């Protein structure tokens, strides 16, 4: 089968390899480009999530510091752990 296959490009009524190669390369490159573009979009999404998490962490830290400085107001603003615990049971998705 392989010996026959090796001879086929010479005799088959198909495009010659130099011309066919362009189309085959084009098709596979299109597939790879789509894949890379998708991965790039996902990377941008993850960067945005990471940035938002960093903002939230610093916001939570500054709020915790503010509560330590004014202990009398502790009952008004729940701590971060309380906030997370109260919603934690719904986390995790599926």
């Amino acid at each position, binding site marked *: *089968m*392989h010996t*026959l*296959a*090796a001879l*086929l*490009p010479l005799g*088959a*009524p*198909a*495009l010659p*390899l130099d*011309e*066919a*190669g362009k*189309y*085959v390369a*084009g*098709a*596979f490159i*299109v*597939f790879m480009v*789509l*894949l890379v573009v*998708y991965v790039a979009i*996902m990377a941008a*999404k*993850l960067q945005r*999530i990471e940035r*938002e*998490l960093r*903002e*939230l962490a610093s*916001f*939570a830290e500054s*709020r915790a510091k503010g509560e330590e400085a004014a202990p009398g107001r502790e009952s008004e603003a729940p701590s*971060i752990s309380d*906030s*997370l615990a*109260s*919603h934690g049971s*719904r*986390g*995790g*998705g*599926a």
Partner: protein
Amino acid sequence: MYGKGLRPLSIATVAMLAVSLSLIFFYAPLDADQGFIQKIFYLHVPLAIVALIGFVVGGVFAIAHLRTNNRKWDAYSYVAIHMSVIFGVAVLITGAIWAKASWGHWWVWDEPTLVSFLIVFLMYATYYPFRYAIEDPERQARYASVFAITAGAFVPLNFMAVRMAQSLVHPRTFATANGGLPGEMMFVFLCSLVTMALLWVTLVKFELTAKSASGQVKRLRRALDAPAPGASSRIAPEVS
């Protein structure tokens, strides 16, 4: 939770991609009729099969959503359709390249297989404007599920109709009068099919993981009463 098992799945997908590409170019015999051009077959056909099955899977998830009223299934359905539309773009482009090389035309309008796939693709392209034309999230999810079920049922019907149509241009891969693919080609084709299926599952898991993480960040922000960073640009369903 959605990210569980993502790493081994990603590694398996990359490994299978490498194996499949090696098999396509170094193992699969050249086609007697089309020669080297036929290598596109190992990319184009598995992509098309996985895209069409993905549309049906989106419909099955939509049924689960309507039965349970759990928004998780709506997100699954959305992501399955979203990924299949992306695969559909690849199918149309690689198919056009193959058609140009093989038939001398980028597109042939009187070929049922091509036109039917385009119809399915365009139908699912309307899923996005249809979905986001509805503001209420509950109604949006419900109507999108009805769309996904109806369109998902249309896909196999469309496939059968095309199979029954008589065409002399587009080749039939399986169950042809001449016996279909030889063993080596079939093996490479099946490897490519498994690879594309793995890629689809991996990308769906990636998308769901990203949506889940985004949803968790929003909930954390609400829990902390933190100010939102500008207007939200989210158009996809949220997974929590």
